[in-house]
């Protein structure tokens, strides 16, 4: 195949791809579940929405920005929670957080009784919803606890596609997942770039420098440094296949990342805070799967 034909084939593959990033949360859930099995719980017509936003002059969305659905993955019962990044930055309020936490806890009950439910989280979130403050943070803590309890029974699979990314307390939820899937467009970090610039100054981080941001917290970097397990193109079918594969492969023998405290303490020891590494040198220091 000559270069022209190769580039034409690549172009065709690109055109045939269904973008996962461009989908709404509800479309994403449908794209991941087995076709025809999508069954939404607490959907928009149940109108379980934020009681706090209208009090602050903000229009509330009927599902509070979280889509919960049951369905199947390769014919096995599954639960998917997806966050709508276009609504309030995918922020976790009292209701949206409680929807995810409550669903995970019900899945946990089922798993404890020997009925395995495959849990999937589709992240697209700036973290806690500032307007709902502690109520959102409490819900996020419940989500963390539920993920840790659930992953003893079944892998908890997370996806960060972009373009919001996954920040704040929900970045911890993503880090607690057994298996994390990212795209190159994804970002994963505790503090968002704008927050860091605002708090520490533009000398610390220029939030408009996209190349810099992605070199530090982008999907490729998080994959290269071992914080994400799969790096995939923005392709709904590839992501759906990777979710299935994460459940069908044997559980990893290594303890969860969040249990490898010694390893990460050791990796942090290699870093001089006065000479913080750039993305490239961090990749060399924290190469994927590098031993403690």
């Amino acid at each position, binding site marked *: 195949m000559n270069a022209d034909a190769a580039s034409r084939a690549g172009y065709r593959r690109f055109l045939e791809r269904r973008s996962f990033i461009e989908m709404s949360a509800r479309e994403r859930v449908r794209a991941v579940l087995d076709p025809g099995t999508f069954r939404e719980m607490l959907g*928009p017509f149940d109108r379980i929405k934020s009681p706090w936003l*209208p009090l602050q002059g*903000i*229009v*509330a969305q*009927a599902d509070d920005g979280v889509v919960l659905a049951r369905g199947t993955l390769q014919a096995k019962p599954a639960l998917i929670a997806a966050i709508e990044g*276009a*609504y309030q930055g995918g922020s976790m309020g009292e209701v949206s957080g409680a929807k995810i936490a409550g669903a995970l806890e019900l899945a946990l009950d089922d798993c404890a009784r020997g009925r395995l439910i495959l849990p999937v989280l589709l992240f697209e979130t700036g973290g806690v919803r500032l307007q709902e403050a502690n109520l959102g943070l409490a819900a996020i803590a419940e989500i963390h606890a539920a993920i840790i309890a659930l992953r003893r029974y079944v892998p908890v699979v997370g996806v960060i596609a972009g373009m919001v990314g996954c920040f704040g307390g929900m970045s911890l939820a993503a880090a607690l997942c057994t298996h994390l899937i990212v795209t190159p467009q994804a970002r994963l970090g505790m503090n968002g770039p704008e927050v860091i610039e605002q708090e520490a100054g533009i000398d610390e981080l220029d939030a408009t420098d996209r190349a810099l941001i992605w070199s530090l917290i982008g999907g490729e970097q998080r994959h290269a440094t071992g914080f994400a397990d799969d790096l995939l193109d923005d392709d709904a079918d590839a992501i759906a296949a990777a979710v299935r594969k994460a459940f069908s492969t044997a559980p990893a023998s290594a303890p969860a990342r969040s249990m490898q405290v010694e390893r990460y303490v050791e990796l942090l020891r290699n870093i001089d805070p006065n000479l913080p590494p750039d993305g490239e040198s961090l990749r060399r220091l924290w190469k994927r799967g590098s031993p403690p």
Partner: protein
Amino acid sequence: MEKIQYDYSARHIVKQRVHVGVVGSGDLEVLLEPSPDARTHVLVNTSVDGFEATWKNVLDRFFARFQGAVSIEINDFGATPGTVMLRLAQAVEGLGA
């Protein structure tokens, strides 16, 4: 934030419900359900105050053509009239699906 309500006469019964859109910047969500009576009811929650006349124009024009008896809730986050029309058309299109 403003709440606006309108009623329209209707010609035929609608049995399905449809949800489209998102309460995101410049966008809106539409919840369309069967009406409890034979009329059409529209409730608009909008983040932008002072556009009551514009809403009335847009909705009058839309319900001059669409005659189904529906209850519609619109949660608006600063959508332009064009976007409102598109979302309403998308919701009605969903009735056929």
